[in-house]
């Protein structure tokens, strides 16, 4: 069974068709690349999947359940988490505090527990969260930056951090919006290693919107190409690379 499926997903912005009849399907552990020229509707698609926008028509099915129109936090609780292109971390907080906030929901400590717990209980809870946070930062290669302000990190590190924040919720489906944009070769390697690790170890499915064709062609299992909101091609990277319609969409027809 597919982890996530969309059926005829459509979004119109007052007449403008941003996404039209889009069918997608991701399996656990799969890395799906979503590519297309600028303005093709990739980010809109992400917003539809993650509940930021409500689709005009069509359905989003996650683990066999219709989750169309669910709020982002509900989807996150079900294990569907996304990252953002810009403004990816809490800039004023330290890297560690970013992770603490990200781990808050999973820690299960709510308002009343926070209010009523004894200092001993709070310390125990804090150290548990601290360990988890450091483990995630270690995975993202950011352990040495834990005490720094997140906003003072270079953009590439912030991108890695945003993935670490997303992983705090232990997602089963990860939506990455241009994850390697602005990253140098080394950071790209760390990020892809991170993504591949969670795919292999936890069977997390990943959808990636990306303009970096080398990354898409080398790492994605399956690629969907959209242009003007419509799916124009899909297949393995090799199939896509030779597809005439794709080349037309990117370069224009003769």
């Amino acid at each position, binding site marked *: 069974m597919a982890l996530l499926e969309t059926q005829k997903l459509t979004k119109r912005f007052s007449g403008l068709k941003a996404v039209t009849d889009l069918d997608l399907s991701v399996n656990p552990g799969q890395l799906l690349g979503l590519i297309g020229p600028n303005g093709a509707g990739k980010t809109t698609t992400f917003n539809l999947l*993650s509940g*930021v926008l409500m689709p005009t028509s069509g359905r989003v099915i996650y683990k066999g359940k219709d989750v169309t129109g669910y*709020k*982002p*936090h*509900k989807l*996150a*609780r079900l294990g569907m*988490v*996304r*990252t*953002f292109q810009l*403004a*990816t*971390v*809490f*800039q*004023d*907080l330290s890297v560690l*505090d970013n992770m*603490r*906030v*990200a*781990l*808050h*929901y*999973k*820690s299960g*400590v*709510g*308002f009343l527990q*926070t*209010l009523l717990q004894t200092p001993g209980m*709070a310390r125990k809870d*804090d150290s548990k*969260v601290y360990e988890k946070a450091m483990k995630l930062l270690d995975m993202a290669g950011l352990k040495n930056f834990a005490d720094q302000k997140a906003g003072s990190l270079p953009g590439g590190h912030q991108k890695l951090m*945003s993935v670490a*924040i*997303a992983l*705090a*919720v232990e997602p089963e489906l990860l939506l990455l919006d241009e994850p390697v944009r602005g990253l140098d070769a080394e950071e790209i390697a760390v990020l892809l290693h991170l993504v591949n690790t969670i795919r292999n170890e936890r069977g997390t499915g990943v959808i990636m919107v990306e303009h970096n064709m080398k990354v898409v062609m080398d790492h994605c299992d399956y690629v969907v190409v959209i242009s003007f909101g419509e799916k124009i091609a899909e297949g393995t990277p090799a199939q896509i690379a030779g597809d005439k319609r794709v080349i037309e969409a990117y370069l224009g027809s003769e």
Partner: protein
Amino acid sequence: MKLPKWQWFIPILIVIFLFVLPLFMHSPRYLSLFNQLFFNTVLALGVYSVWTIGYINASQPIFFGLGAYTVAILMTRTHWPFWAVFPMAGIIPAIIAALFGFLGLKLKGAYFLFLTIAFCDLLEWMFMSWKSLFGGQVGIFPVPQPKIHLFGYFIDFSRSLVPYYFLALILVVVTCLVYFKLHGSRLGRVWQCVAKNEDILANTGISVFTQKQIVFITSCFFAGLAGAIYAPYMTIVSPTQFNLWQGIWIVLGVLVGGIFSPIGAIIGTVFMAVLTFLLQKSVQFQPLILGMILILTLLFMPTGLFGLPGRIINKIREVSSNKNAKPEIKKTI
């Protein structure tokens, strides 16, 4: 707020001092100053708390008033004892806050402020016009005095202001403990993040709207409890006692003290109370001086009085390091 261990002595000493103060201070003038200060502190902490999630709440005195009216109405009509009515004065404003928040907390920033302003006027009008319940312009008078039997002692609230002083002080201490604990915890960090980026927060599974509701309701709950003490303390509850201007003055006090910290909120409230007290004899200059202070604060002390020492220390360091650097520059020239 997380304080280093030794710094805990300061608040503890202040609280002990406040608890023994009535032994030496009998003047009703000073007692009422302190009582007013305690009420305002509870409201100011509420303003701070709601500020952390990115909103300015000018309607705290109205929830304070709702608490006061709750006590006044229940005590005059049902003859319930004060202790039974007291929690109701927190719960009823909390319920109304939940309804208000359900509509209002979907708005962003300044729009929420405007909504609280409208809400203040609406409720003031309701207190005025719903005569059968709120007593109209005259209000409710007299509010019965609480009678408390504690450990075999009978505490008579009608004879002096001292029992009110202690009651209000205990409420302030409890409120401080609750706010300091919540805002110093990881949950407090989450609340700070609500104001910064709701999208990332929602993606970690936190319901941003619920968190906003919790913060807003908590602040109104404590405001209501403060109102519960205020009603029998004043013996009269009327619409003119709770209005928008008080709400704005409390927000301004918090700004002057330093809105980025609960300690700043308390310092600002104390500062405003002392200033109003000193200016009592020259009431006509009060708005002038308070207004000037506010303008100066906003222009030159964005972190308020509480943040001022830190800023001055930084400035001095900067200047002294510049002085050290100067000869080197000369050499290069």
